[in-house]
């Protein structure tokens, strides 16, 4: 394979780390919402409250993360200008908006109920049903918030993201469950945190299994996972998730191990998102048809290329890096493939 001066064909993704962080906080908020609803429906007030708080906190961080990453943050509301099924970002904006509204309503009803003893004179009987409906909606939309982001990254030309499209929603879903369950296991008295621990352990196992499956099926696009930061992040994530799950499953009934295990799951989920995110950048860089650190491949015979060393960067200031070393003939540099 040959290339144009070693330049990648694809552009580097323009998204900053805020987007990867949002994948984490969005998943955390979404699944915490779902967990909170079920806890409330089952009368587990302690778990319902802690999960709802996590959901609100996650949401509170998510929205600014999304806005700051825009090139024109003041035009954030243009996201709601159209409803566009061909754009996961458009659908995601609507899902997230609905989730935010439902969660806001659920919180408002919780607060109203909490202060009701003082407001006995007001006709507030509608609060409980409204709150429950809002939380039900928030739970349903929460599962959407936790999974649409997988479609968002897969719906790109970036090989490591696009080729992982069959497994990505399961990785994200598992990761979101692990983080939400982990957070609830930290914040809830252990007697009430049983469901959170089970959700966390199940989520972590799915997160790890689905991402291992993805790496097996990525084909050549798996290369970013085989070296560098991505490999480290991915392996650390696997270790943290499996370790945290094991801790919660065995010693989760005691508070200190529950806190450590929950924190490991949160960290594992965060690392997984960043591993996948960074893999996309590496993958886009590798679309030049050359190994990232290897020599520029030559054209196949009979055409010999009068080559110039690839320029490492095209940004201003790259001048110094642009060494004008000319090599003639394919024998000067070994073929990388």
């Amino acid at each position, binding site marked *: 394979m040959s290339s144009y001066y070693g330049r990648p064909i694809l552009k580097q993704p323009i998204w900053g780390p805020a987007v990867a962080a949002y994948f984490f906080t969005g998943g955390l908020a979404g699944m915490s919402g779902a967990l909170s609803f079920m806890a409330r429906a089952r009368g587990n007030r302690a778990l319902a409250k802690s999960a709802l708080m996590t959901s609100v906190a996650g949401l509170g961080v998510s929205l600014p993360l999304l806005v700051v990453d825009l090139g024109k943050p003041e035009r954030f509301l243009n996201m709601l200008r159209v409803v566009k099924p061909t754009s996961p970002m458009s659908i995601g904006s609507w899902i997230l908006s609905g989730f935010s509204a439902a969660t806001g309503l659920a919180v408002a009803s919780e607060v109203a109920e909490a202060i009701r003893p003082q407001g006995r004179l007001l006709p507030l009987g509608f609060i409980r049903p409204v709150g429950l409906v809002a939380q039900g909606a928030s739970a349903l939309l929460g599962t959407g918030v936790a999974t649409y982001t997988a479609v968002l990254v897969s*719906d790109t030309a970036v090989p490591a993201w696009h080729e992982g499209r069959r497994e990505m929603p399961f990785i994200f879903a598992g990761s979101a469950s692990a983080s939400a369950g982990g957070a609830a296991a930290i914040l809830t008295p252990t007697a009430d945190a049983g469901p959170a621990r089970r959700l966390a352990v199940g989520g972590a196992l*799915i997160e790890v299994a689905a991402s291992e499956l993805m790496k097996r099926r990525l084909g050549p696009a798996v290369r970013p996972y085989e070296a560098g930061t991505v490999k480290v992040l991915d392996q650390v994530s696997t270790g943290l998730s499996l370790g945290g799950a094991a801790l919660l499953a065995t010693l989760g009934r005691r508070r200190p191990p529950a806190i450590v295990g929950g924190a490991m799951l949160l960290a594992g989920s965060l690392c997984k998102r960043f591993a996948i995110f960074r893999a996309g950048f590496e993958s886009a860089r590798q679309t030049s048809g050359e190994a990232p650190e290897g020599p520029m491949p030559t054209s196949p015979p009979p055409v010999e290329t009068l080559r110039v060393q690839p320029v490492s960067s095209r940004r201003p200031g790259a001048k110094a890096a642009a060494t004008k070393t000319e090599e003639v003939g394919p024998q000067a540099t070994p073929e990388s493939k």
Partner: protein
Amino acid sequence: MAVVSGPPPYRDATVVEPQPGQHVGFFTDSSICIGCKACEVACKEWNHVPIDGLNFLGSSYDNTGELGANSWRHVAFIEQNRPVAADGSGGMRWLMNSDVCKHCAHAACLEVCPTGALMRTEFGTVVVQPDVCNGCGYCVSACPFGVIERREGDGRAFKCTLCYDRLKGHMQPACAQACPTQSIQFGPIDDLRVRARRRLADLHQQGMAEARLYGVDESDNEVGGLNAFFLLLDEPEVYGLPTHPVTTTRDLPQMWRTAAVAAGMLALGVLAAFGRRR
């Protein structure tokens, strides 16, 4: 290699006035490109595209490097050593090609755009509306050709508009207008396809077996035909063009289904986590 000898290949080609409803585009014949970069200059001037640095890239006579927010035409320069004499002894040839946005029939950039800023015009071209774009950057990662880019310091995405304003005024795009060799040809894409195939046949007849068309046949790739296609003299990768461009949005229905299954799994998972009602 006698690429530019003989009579000009498109002597009789006339420029058709663009009409709304007619799908127009470019056919770039790299075999007669002389690397003058008039297209790059004309594009910059007409569209008021800002400077993006005077950089020395060390890639032959190409200091533009690639298409981007501030380069809507990019002339690639490749110097190749190859046998030219009968005894197979060496010589060199230039490959030059003016690259541009392909205005794909299935444009992933347009489809993923969450704001509707990217739109299909009445000329079948793909254009960013700068007053709508909020700089989310999704189009950048969706484009299989690495064309569209977010402009630093501005925050919005920019790319070739196929001179939408000139088309509205029944004029051909600035780059095609400025091209001195008819390497860049503008017109209705059906006409251009015919012209491209005829030119390919002529070149093959002249013994240039390496000549090939890129993006002409709708079945060639997933992109469903390009509104800007090329005649190349080497592998597409040599010019920085992907052999198999992928339209990511083709797989979107499958992706939504998978995500729905995963979301359903989450709902069941939460139910299961609580176990039987006590």
